[in-house]
């Protein structure tokens, strides 16, 4: 290193989020006494403009060589502070963050132990920071095309937006037809429009689009490469079965959902009584002309909410967000078409939170649909009727409701193949099993894998407008690299110290990306920095210590261990 390090340390209060449990003044005082620290400050919000200005001013006036911010997780604000450093000519890789919020102030009570932990995390950060070296950010060319997985409402919208913007799109649909689950729906809520009529023109536009290639009965079987340049293998499983290889710059996952299988809850008698059907089966019944059950017009119709939903012990812990309104629309349909019928909805709570939802729910009740807050216990047959037994939870008494037709509002579940696709695309899943977004609040369409975006119900239950909103957001996010034509390539990649390398090749055998090769003349290993993803497996395995990982070097990590264990005693 050319110059003696001169470190600036900044402790964030995060309002009271950190300052409430950590004595930030004490931490700043401690940091100021650490070796090579030229200045240590604490401030209400380091990420605010005045907070960032403190850093920028110090870089200029004190000539800082490294900056450490002790605040939230680096996954939250590392980019913010890196950019602030860069603005004042400091290499962004000479910045380090100490996570004293998510991993300290939010998980421990106020007290000296928590402040002590914060101090040690700061000391660990500083000991790494003084060893950080400037790294050059590289850029890679982007293949100007996108892959959309799933041909439902989400996939269609994402594909159309990207193609309309001028890029080539390949849409892969597992089934034989496009339109997804929405095509199985009879009408929308609360607007009562036939769904097929809304989707069919979109499918026609998709199929006729000059820049969209649609592969049906096809499945993604292999994904390699990286952000900007993915290599995809698609297996087509129709009579002309074939293997297709594609190159794309971005991927949108829009694989949709499955439905909860109510046979898991035998008390509802689904599969046992033909008069018990799911909400989705009702859609077919309603779309098919006259509504009859066993050849007769039903007189008593009972809808049951939350079948399998909001039941952490036996089924799904979450709410599927659409079933309340789907049921209201279906009850309305029965009430309109069979005015003589008695229509009862057994509910736990009614969640009518969307635009026009509450108004529609009110209207359906005014029409004569009886909403009864009840907890159903079982369905039995008595004569030619079914009897729904339940506890009316407002009256606190057991009730029996006769029924000719029972409709179960089953919720949405992650598709059965979610796990397989998660492994292919290196995606995480939420506790509910759906694909997980990069941040639950701030990055709802991104994933932890750069260049892979989520749209629609594969990320969690949604209605049609929410699905389309997310699909078009995912399309916009995917178009950023496609339009720019370049993406930043990870600068924290592996490197070789040639004088130590014996060219044994152990590292190359471990590398998943084929990023390491023996130099034919010099007899040492070389790193392809575009292929290297910076995992560090090679560095750890190198018997002579020649392989190393930028930004997480052996010396940097050892300095952190040394500081932490040293400070512990």
């Amino acid at each position: 290193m050319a110059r003696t390090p001169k470190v600036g340390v900044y402790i964030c209060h995060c309002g009271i989020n950190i300052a409430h449990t950590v004595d930030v003044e004490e931490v700043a005082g401690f940091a100021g006494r650490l070796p090579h620290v030229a200045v240590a400050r604490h401030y209400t919000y380091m990420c605010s403009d005045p907070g960032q200005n403190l850093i920028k001013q110090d870089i200029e006036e004190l000539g800082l060589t490294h900056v450490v911010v002790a605040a939230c997780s680096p996954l939250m604000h590392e980019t913010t502070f890196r950019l602030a450093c860069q603005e004042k000519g400091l290499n962004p890789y000479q910045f380090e963050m100490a996570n004293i919020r998510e991993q300290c102030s939010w998980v421990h009570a106020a007290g000296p132990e928590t402040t002590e932990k914060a101090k040690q995390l700061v000391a660990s950060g500083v000991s790494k920071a003084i060893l950080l070296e400037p790294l050059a950010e590289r850029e890679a060319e982007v293949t100007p095309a996108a892959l959309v997985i799933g041909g439902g409402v989400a996939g269609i919208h994402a594909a159309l937006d990207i193609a309309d913007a001028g890029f080539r799109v390949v849409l892969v649909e597992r089934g034989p037809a496009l339109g997804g689950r929405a095509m199985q729906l009879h009408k929308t809520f609360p607007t009562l429009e036939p769904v097929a009529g809304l989707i069919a023109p979109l499918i026609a536009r998709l199929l006729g689009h000059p820049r969209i290639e649609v592969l049906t009965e096809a499945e993604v079987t292999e994904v390699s490469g990286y952000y900007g340049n993915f290599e995809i293998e698609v297996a087509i499983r129709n009579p002309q079965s074939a293997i297709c290889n594609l190159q794309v710059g971005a991927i949108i996952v829009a694989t949709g959902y499955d439905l909860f299988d109510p046979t898991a809850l035998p008390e509802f008698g689904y599969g046992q009584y033909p008069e018990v059907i799911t909400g989705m089966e009702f859609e077919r019944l309603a779309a098919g002309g006259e509504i009859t059950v066993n050849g007769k017009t039903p007189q008593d119709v009972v809808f049951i909410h939350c079948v399998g939903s909001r039941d952490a012990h036996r089924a799904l812990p979450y709410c599927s967000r659409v079933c309340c309104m789907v049921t209201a629309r279906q009850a309305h349909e029965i009430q309109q078409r069979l005015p003589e019928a008695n229509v009862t909805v057994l509910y736990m709570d009614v969640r009518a939170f969307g635009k026009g939802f509450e108004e529609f729910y009110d209207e359906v009740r005014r029409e004569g649909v009886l909403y009864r807050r009840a907890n159903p216990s079982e369905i039995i047959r008595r004569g030619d009727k079914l009897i729904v037994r339940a506890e009316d939870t407002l009256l606190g008494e057991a009730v029996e409701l006769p029924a000719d037709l029972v409709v179960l509002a089953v919720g949405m579940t992650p598709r059965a193949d979610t796990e397989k696709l998660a492994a292919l695309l290196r995606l995480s899943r939420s506790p509910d099993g759906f694909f997980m977004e990069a941040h639950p609040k701030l990055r709802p369409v991104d994933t932890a894998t750069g260049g892979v975006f989520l749209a629609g119900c594969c990320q969690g239950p949604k209605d049609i407008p929410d699905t389309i909103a997310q699909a078009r957001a995912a399309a916009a996010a995917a178009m950023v690299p496609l339009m720019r034509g370049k993406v930043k390539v990870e600068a924290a990649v592996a490197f070789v110290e040639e004088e130590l390398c014996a060219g044994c090749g152990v590292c190359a055998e471990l590398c998943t990306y084929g990023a390491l090769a023996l130099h034919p003349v010099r007899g040492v290993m070389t790193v392809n920095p575009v292929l290297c993803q910076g995992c560090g497996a090679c560095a750890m395995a190198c018997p002579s210590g020649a392989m190393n990982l930028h930004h997480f070097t052996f010396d940097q990590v050892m300095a952190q261990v040394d500081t932490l264990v040293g400070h512990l005693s």
Partner: protein
Amino acid sequence: MSNSDFEPRIVAFLCNWCTYTGADLAGTSRIQYPPNVRIIRLMCSGAVDPVYVLKALLDGADGVLIGGCHPGDCHYQTGNYKARRRVAILKETLRQMGLEEDRLWLRWISASEGQRFADTITEMTAALKAMGPNPMRREWAV
């Protein structure tokens, strides 16, 4: 030092994509756990050099946790399997050195398992309290 007032010192090497994010989620969910752990962020559990673990234990840390993605979920495809093989050998090394092998824990904790991360730290702190201080701490004292 009696075991009742002994506070174990844990160094945790967490992979960026799963366990580090899981530890962040424990934070955003405000799940409380003992303040006995100090986290070092690495990109992958497969990048945990055995030397890091040995240094921490020889210098007197009472326990080391390596946290990675569940099998099949590794962001780099196979890093966690590399970590698993390495831990198996490291435990053998610890035994030969006369250290309890249970001072080293390897756990798969995903980005959505904040509770599991907090539970792991709570359990590990309790287990190390029961085990007592790292004997190396005394041996290395001058």
